[in-house]
């Protein structure tokens, strides 16, 4: 086993364990901390794929800003343990169907000629350069980029209007 494969397997298992913890934890704050674990593990995998800028953004924006917002609201609302209620029995049917779909996708990826051709093709070892990424972002994708700034502005206004106390 090569070193990248060991690093991949370790952090992949960490991410899956964190995702399972999100489901099993009964305190919302434990779910939030498990989700932070998933995000940090994914940031390491982005580094392994050579996407340095995305790894940094993942840590700063996702694990830093978004999850802090979640933890802040959980603390603010002081909610207790999650109630367990009955859910539809059809959920189990869906679970079986989802598992079958996952097996099918895995089979496609590892065994079909088309899937394996894309997935196992040789990859260059150089990292994605942030300079090239920013050129693409500020030239070809300039209009969507500006549209997201409007979106953020609207989101800020919407959050303010929604959370404001009625006088």
């Amino acid at each position, binding site marked *: 086993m090569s070193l*990248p*494969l060991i690093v*991949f397997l370790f952090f*992949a298992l960490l*991410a*899956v364990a964190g*995702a399972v913890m*999100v*489901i099993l934890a009964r305190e*919302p704050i434990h*779910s*939030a901390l498990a*989700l932070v674990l*998933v995000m940090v593990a994914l940031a390491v995998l982005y580094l*392994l*794929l050579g*996407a340095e*800028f*995305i790894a940094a*953004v*993942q840590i700063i*924006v*996702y694990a830093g*800003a*978004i999850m802090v*917002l*979640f933890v802040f*609201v*959980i603390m*603010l*609302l002081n*909610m207790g343990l*999650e*109630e367990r*209620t009955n*859910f539809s029995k059809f959920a189990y049917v869906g*679970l079986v169907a*989802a598992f079958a779909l*996952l097996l099918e*996708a*895995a089979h496609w*990826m590892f065994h079909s000629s088309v899937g394996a051709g*894309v*997935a*196992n*093709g040789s*990859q*260059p*070892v150089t990292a*994605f350069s942030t300079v090239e*990424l920013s050129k*693409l*972002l500020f030239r070809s994708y300039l209009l969507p980029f500006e549209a*997201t700034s409007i*979106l953020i502005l609207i*989101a800020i206004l*919407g*959050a303010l209007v*929604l*959370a404001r106390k009625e006088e």
Partner: protein
Amino acid sequence: MTVPISYYLLLSAVLFGLGVVAFVFKRNVITVFMSVELMLNAVNLAFVAFARAYNKFDGLVDVFFVIVVAAAEAAVGLAIVIMLRRNRESLNVERVDLLKF
């Protein structure tokens, strides 16, 4: 030498599936929100893996936009959760049934 891209895609599928399971099974509004974030993260991993497979930057730009939209969604969503708490006293999704027929 390097890790095959298919491993990343499989991890992405597993994480997305766990996100869907959390979305369906969790009963707290905030944890339902967190499972949406989990699914977005899984899709981001697939985007970066395909960007690496084809050696193109466009996938990375898509990840950037997904993160921006996730931030906006979290801000508005959590404001709605605060409103919900103020008006309904409970954050159980089963109790929020004003629009249910």
